[in-house]
């Protein structure tokens, strides 16, 4: 289950500067755990101490915010596209 994960600037020091890495897993949580094993330090940047997605982190699965899917349990399949993006505000 290889997926493509786009990594924002603040996390690239964990990925040797790469803006895109591969990871595997059948759910968002599994992918995050896999990212942690490949790039130690990532997990605690994405999840808070209760294991929930941090308030200011948005994770998109094939363009959809996982908060509108099944959160960390959202099912991931081979070839999926995941983006980690800091929350933005500021109006339209």
């Amino acid at each position, binding site marked *: 289950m290889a997926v493509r994960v786009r990594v924002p600037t603040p996390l690239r020091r964990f990925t040797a500067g790469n803006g895109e890495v591969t990871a595997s897993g059948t759910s968002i949580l599994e992918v995050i755990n896999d990212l942690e094993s490949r790039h130690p330090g990532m997990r605690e940047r994405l999840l808070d101490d209760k294991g929930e997605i941090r308030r200011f*982190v948005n994770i998109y699965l094939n363009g959809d915010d996982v908060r509108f899917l099944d959160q960390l349990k959202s099912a991931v399949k081979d070839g999926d596209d995941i983006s980690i*993006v800091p929350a933005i505000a*500021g109006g339209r």
Partner: protein
Amino acid sequence: MSYITALKCRECGQDYPVEPLHVCETCFGPLEVVYDYGRIRGAISHKLIESRARNLWRYRELLPVDNEPDIGPCSGFTPLLHAKRLGAEVGVKKLYIKDDTVNHPTLSYKDRVVSVAITKAREFGFTTVSCASTGNLATAVASHAARAGLKCYIFMPEGVESGKIVGSAIYGAKVITIRGNYDDVNRLCSEIADKYGWAFVNINLRPYYTEGAKTFGFEIAEQLGWKLPDSVVIPTAGGTILPKVAKAFKELKDVGLVKGGAPKIHSAQAAGSAPVIHALHKGVDLISPVKPNTIAKSIAIGNPADGYYVLGAVRESGGWGEMATDEEIVEAIKLLARTEGIFAEPAGGTTLAVTLKLLAQGRIRPEESVVVSITGNGYKTLEAVAGAVEQPFVIEARLDDFDALFERLADGKRLAGAA
């Protein structure tokens, strides 16, 4: 001369240098500008501020800029109107409208935040500025970038009305429409900001940009004679302006420009996009995102990044919040127009409609001084009310015809919707 000492994460408190950064590397929390208030207190005074030009830079010590600002020379210092006719209608004597429908040059509160962001972009040496927006933010960035001589790219979701594209392209900005929704556009813009090193006013310049919103609060205090009102009602979209007005009031006290006063700060959202109000009413901190569906497009943000800080500021101030339906929004736009001669966009209708609800609930008392924040101009959103106004009466160019019509109107036989 700058009074900024650092950027600091609002969540975990980590310090960062004064650079184009916007999120904390540790927790992704937003970064906030830190000032040396001790030095500001010694430098600033009513006399100094009042001696300066009537624009947002009269409060420059409390803004995150280094040089003499020349962006937005006429932005800010919009009218604070004592709304006597509206006040009489709703039973509040000290009712005020803070009127950013006439902000220069693009007729919305965004001229404040963008003036600060573009000033900072130039200080940092950026040559290209950008944003994701379909409305007020896009026109403000395109306009201020033009005057600053910077290249400008505006990103919008595909399918937006042609008027929105014209409103940015006219200033020479490159407009790029994205096959996707507004969230997709924002996501792409974050990635572009990282890769191209452009100044996205509400992404990598966000800590500076948001500071511009404080000027809305500074002006309210100055225009009330350096006093704070009892209640302020402010629209909430991404959550920028409300916490920044709260910060502005606090700063004025901290640096000795205002003594006393503890305004209740109230949040207004459209019922079709009210994630912050839902959380407020439920008494929780967690804001569940919604898919917006409202005529108030300028405040239709379903996942407000700063919503959490709106909740904090409202609760700390003893304020409250309400939401208004599209029908209530339209009625309030009409009420403001026919009593005070101000034509607000739907965000302003939302704010006034919510003010009326808070009065009815007793959250705002009729004896209070109340400021209603009108942040954008109705001429930009004619479609929102086009179906709700009286249609013109059509007659031949004959005096007899007009006499007959006038008799009919004067008899009170007006068509539906006549005021």
